[in-house]
């Protein structure tokens, strides 16, 4: 019995220390992220962007849109892509063996005509059938291929692309008009940059005009509201912080900008993961470090991409389950970088963090909860201690969320109404009083499922379909 008590006590201490370290780390990142936002906001002025538009010192961009069965939204999405504010770019849509009317809708809306084309197939993909060009928008190319998954569709798009920068997006991403402009600027300013990630924000509740959000308002459900807070935290504090530390592991699949050659050199997207966006970034780090090539992968908060976040818990849980399985697959694949000094901060900081606090986090939290309950039942734990500790955990989480909400308030395009800001405050609390625990549970289940691979393949095909 003494042994059990000691074990429980030991684990409790571990959990407390774990969470204390975690929160302190969050705080450090968050501060780094905030500093990055402050400095970054002064680095790209409007005059600079105007110069970029009016002179021709920019790099042309190929926007890559993988699509699967999206007849209802594809025309609107592609329509917004072709109307971006950028001097020279092309939009390459790849229908991954869609079985609905996706292709027909595109053909009608954009006056597509088939064009026999010869192109360099540097990445192996499933066979590509028709390649069509739009008569109305000369930069729009639409290809149809045999179904092979999102990564495969992206690789096919990379093969078809002809510009030095590529921007893989989700088919339901709504890019801010200046997103590409602001992101591509970073490639001009620094030769070593191989990839740039931007901010992803939830468009739920926003009023649209001309296909873009103009007035931001709170969406109706608390699930959506909590995700707004979560995304603010993840991007303005998380990604910004990692980027400033030079150890960014993820660029969102919803919007990223990459040097085409760099992606081709490492072999394009990997088709065996549901987290292909993160895996590519990790592989870019790994291969470039191995080859001794200096490279930088950065996050900039300025380029903004809007996406629809799930409004119901079921869809949200499936999404997070998928993300977590992808995370585990990717971390396992690149385990050689772990604590490997050759990979610099990625190996020594980012990998351990992601393994300990992201991948194993749900396990530790769930066991922690069980241990505490057990200790409570046995009687070795003072209920006051437990309550205080739980309150502390919630307060820490909420504090960071409030900082993130504060950063969001500094954007020109922000939730302007006072009531909306107060609702966001509330959502920050609500997240830690239920949703966080629910999603931790989901990620815990995902960790167990990852070993079995059941449901893995079925999910893969749908990674890219809007789930709202």
């Amino acid at each position, binding site marked *: 019995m003494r042994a059990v008590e000691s074990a429980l006590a030991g684990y409790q201490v571990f959990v407390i220390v774990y969470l204390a370290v975690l929160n302190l780390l969050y705080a450090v990142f968050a501060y780094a992220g905030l500093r990055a936002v402050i400095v970054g906001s002064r680095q790209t002025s409007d005059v600079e962007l*105007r110069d970029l*538009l*009016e002179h*021709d010192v920019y790099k042309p961009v190929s926007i890559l849109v993988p699509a699967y069965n999206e007849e209802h939204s594809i025309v609107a999405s592609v329509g917004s892509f072709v*109307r971006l504010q950028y001097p020279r770019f092309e939009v390459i849509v790849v229908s991954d063996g869609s079985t609905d009317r996706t292709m027909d809708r595109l053909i009608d809306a954009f006056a597509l005509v088939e064009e026999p084309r010869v192109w360099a197939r540097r990445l192996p993909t499933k066979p590509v059938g028709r390649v069509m060009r739009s008569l109305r928008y000369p930069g729009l190319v639409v290809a149809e291929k045999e179904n092979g998954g999102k990564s495969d569709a992206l690789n096919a798009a990379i093969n078809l692309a002809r510009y030095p920068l590529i921007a893989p997006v989700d088919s339901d991403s709504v890019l801010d*008009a200046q997103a590409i402009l602001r992101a591509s600027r970073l490639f001009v300013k620094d030769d070593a940059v191989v990839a740039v990630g931007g901010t992803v924000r939830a468009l739920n509740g926003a009023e649209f005009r*001309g296909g*873009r959000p103009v007035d931001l308002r709170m969406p109706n459900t608390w699930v959506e509201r909590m995700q707004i807070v979560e995304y603010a935290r993840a991007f303005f504090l998380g990604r910004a912080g990692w980027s400033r530390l030079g150890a960014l592991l993820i660029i969102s699949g919803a919007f990223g900008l990459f040097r085409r050659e760099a992606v081709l050199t490492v072999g394009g997207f990997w088709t065996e993961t549901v987290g292909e966006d993160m895996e590519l970034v990790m592989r870019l780090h790994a291969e470039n470090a191995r080859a001794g090539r200096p490279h930088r992968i950065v996050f900039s908060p300025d380029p903004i991409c809007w996406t629809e976040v799930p409004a119901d818990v079921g869809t949200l849980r499936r999404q997070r389950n998928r993300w977590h399985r992808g995370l585990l697959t990717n971390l396992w694949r690149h385990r050689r970088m772990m604590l490997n000094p050759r990979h610099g901060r990625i190996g020594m900081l980012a990998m351990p963090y992601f393994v300990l606090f992201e991948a194993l986090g749900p396990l530790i939290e769930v066991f922690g909860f069980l241990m505490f309950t057990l200790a409570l039942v046995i009687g070795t734990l003072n209920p006051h201690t437990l309550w205080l500790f739980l309150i502390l955990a919630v307060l820490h989480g909420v504090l960071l969320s409030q900082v993130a909400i504060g950063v969001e308030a500094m954007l020109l395009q922000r939730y302007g109404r006072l009531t909306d800001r107060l609702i966001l405050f509330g959502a920050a609390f609500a997240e830690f009083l239920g949703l966080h625990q629910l999603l931790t549970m989901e990620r815990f289940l995902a960790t167990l499922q990852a070993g079995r691979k059941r449901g893995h393949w079925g999910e893969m095909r749908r990674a890219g379909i809007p789930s709202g």
Partner: protein
Amino acid sequence: MAAILAIEDDWTVGVVLEHTLRSAGHDVDLVRGLIDGREALTTGQYDLVLLDINLPDGNGLELLRDVRHRFGRALQVLVLTGMRQEESVVEGLELGADDYVTKPFSPSELLARVSRCVRS
């Protein structure tokens, strides 16, 4: 004198346009994007449109195409373009713009071109 619709997103340029044209006696409505521009064209009556090419919600030349489609040559269109964008100027003129002004511009030159357009 003339009723002018200015479609320009840069607010300094907008103020300069408003001031310059109003001092010369014209009526000016200033909007900041293509969508507002389209709305204004449906609800208002204008003699001349001052159209910036680089707008945040799209390329001004799109609107030019629509304007020529809807109003024919009855509505004068003057295109505002950056100094090195020769291609846009040519494209604009081909699409039916009546004249162009490059940015940065001199207010007196702008007035002269506007007057010429309005006269014809």
